[in-house]
């Protein structure tokens, strides 16, 4: 079990949500985060998740036992891989979802298609769609899911804990100037992060400022612009060591990229995928980034409270003196 210690309260008896709901005893009528009105049967026993971030959220709420199906890409926590697979988030197999007889399907507007939601609706299956666009909304969405799915207590506990960690982070970073970064979401073509996304908000909370200021959520960027903006750090988020190695090699070999100060000074931050999922784990990713950017603000005694695996699997910025790609920290890792 890799679940963070935060979740110990998950096994408590759950209360049925009372506020904000109407309808018969067996179903509650609620508005989801995209404004659709849906009726969720109570109690919720069988849940299908249509996205990795949703699966993570459900597990974090202690609802892992009630998840009866998730997508091909749901790999966190490890138990998520054991669930019945319903296809990809963009092309879920409607038959496979229906055959699991879910009380509710949880989707997210970030990657699921409206068509899939309509198709499930047609079959009389309740689909709750989340739509978090800030870190705060990730937390409120998590708490709301807990409330609707019968894990209100652990939702509140989880939310309070994450908020406490975020304000602790704020305290440590208070008064420090933000460091300019380029978040490399995708390399070919170069895609970064724009305004009104949870990721941009997450960067900001970690004391980073994206050099890209775009109204698009996931803008495609011209490298010329980056060369002019000269970000202090390049950030990538990937759990696959080989891909990370390849990507870092690319940065150092490509003509345009070579001219970036961040590349010349080897100022890379390699983060786990936690920061790219709008789930409670996002806070782990934020802490991870803050620690990479401001190591001096985190004294040796300041324990990393997130998933212990994250702390070592992830990053180290390679100073110029070191060999090119030491991106894993050695020693002290389980």
């Amino acid at each position, binding site marked *: 079990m890799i679940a963070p210690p935060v979740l110990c309260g998950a096994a408590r008896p759950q209360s049925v949500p009372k506020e904000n709901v109407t309808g018969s005893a067996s179903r509650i009528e609620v508005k989801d985060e*995209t*404004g*659709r009105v849906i009726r969720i049967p109570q109690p919720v026993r069988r849940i299908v998740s249509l996205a990795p971030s949703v699966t993570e959220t459900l597990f974090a709420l202690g609802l892992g036992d009630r998840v009866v199906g998730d997508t*091909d890409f749901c790999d966190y926590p490890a138990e998520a891989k054991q669930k019945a*697979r*319903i*296809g*990809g988030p*963009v*092309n879920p*197999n*409607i*038959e*496979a979802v*229906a*055959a699991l007889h879910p009380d509710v399907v949880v989707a997210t*507007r*970030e*990657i699921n*298609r*409206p*068509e*899939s939601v*309509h*198709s499930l*609706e*047609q*079959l009389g299956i309740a689909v709750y769609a989340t739509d978090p666009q800030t870190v705060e909304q990730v937390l409120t969405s998590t708490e709301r899911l807990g409330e609707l799915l019968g894990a209100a207590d652990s939702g509140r506990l989880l939310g309070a804990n994450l908020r406490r960690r975020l304000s602790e982070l704020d305290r440590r970073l208070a008064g420090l100037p933000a460091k300019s970064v380029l978040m490399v979401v995708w390399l070919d073509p170069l895609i970064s992060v724009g305004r009104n996304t949870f990721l941009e908000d997450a960067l900001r909370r970690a004391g980073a400022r994206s050099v890209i200021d775009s109204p*698009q*959520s*996931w*803008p*495609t960027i011209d490298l010329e612009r980056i060369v002019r903006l000269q970000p202090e750090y390049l950030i990538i988020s990937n759990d696959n060591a080989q891909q990370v190695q390849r990507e870092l090699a690319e940065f150092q070999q490509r003509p345009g990229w070579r001219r970036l100060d961040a590349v010349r000074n080897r100022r890379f931050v390699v983060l786990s995928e936690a920061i790219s999922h709008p789930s409670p784990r996002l806070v782990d990713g934020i802490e991870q980034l803050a620690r990479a950017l401001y190591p001096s603000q985190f004294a040796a005694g300041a324990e990393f409270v997130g998933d212990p695996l994250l702390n070592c699997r992830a990053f180290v910025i390679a100073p110029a003196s070191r060999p090119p790609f030491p991106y894993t920290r050695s020693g002290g890792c389980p």
Partner: protein
Amino acid sequence: MRPLTLRRVLWSCALLAAVLLGIVLLALRLGAVPFSFGDLGQNLWWLVSGQSEKISTDFRLIMVDIRLPRILLGIVVGAALSVAGAGFQALLRNPLADPYVLGVSSGAALGAILALLAAPALPLMTPAAAFVGAAATIAAVYFLGRRQGQLDSGTLLLAGIVTASFLSATIMFLMTTLASRDLRGIAFWLMGDLSVSLPRGLLWLLIAGFFAAAGAILTTASDLNVLLAGEREAMHLGVDVTRVKLVVYISASVLTGLAVSVSGAIGYVGLLVPHVMRMIFGSDYRLLIPTSAIGGAITIVLADALARTVIAPTELPVGAMTAMAGAPVFIYLLRRRLA
């Protein structure tokens, strides 16, 4: 060539229909949720004989509500695309013509994208807007493709291709500049996708539209045979070339528009199936149109059944399957005919 008799048309169609029935049964059997043939037969019998209260809930949910409507949709879409393809190949007198050559699918895609941007939460908005987009493209290409007040094959083809590339460029522009999250799935739509469940009413509307438009093309079948020899020759033989071309253009475009609105642009079926049917049954349009319709249905139902099961529960886009499986079959038939 043997003279075409009604008897031969009926026999050919009956043969293909039998194949289609077999494929449909196979497609019903295949899927993410397994059912044995015994279960399938038993429940189908209960369904057909009106003892629907005996049907298991799982069968009702998976078969009656999901798989059967999807197969039915595949049949209509496949038939519509193949008849449209056959129609365009005759109208443009070009073996490379397919239902999308004149830009109908691009127009539909643009309509669908605009609908997804404007109202992603409205379920029927996408097919409706896609059909409006297709209809607008049909009208635009019609006016661009006329020469001295008449549809001219060469001009029509050029006008259609230019319109199609203009619309595709517009789509790419919108997708890169807006990058809306609701467009994430549009790539699937552009490749063709039968997974979206439609309300029953829309399915019946689609079937009615198919029979009207395909029927209209079938009435021009013997004229199309003459037209293949050349427009002037056809005119000398008393064919009302202007009317025939107009009927075929509008009907084939409407068929394409209907298919694309509900399933996206499923490729290759409309190009390959008419050619395969020509190789098997000859090029008489009176036989080619009905056989293409059934052949198209067979192709899509089979391709979709494979798309659903090859890497189940993950679904492949059916368009990828039609091209992957269709191209080798086509090459085989082509070479065999030349040998």
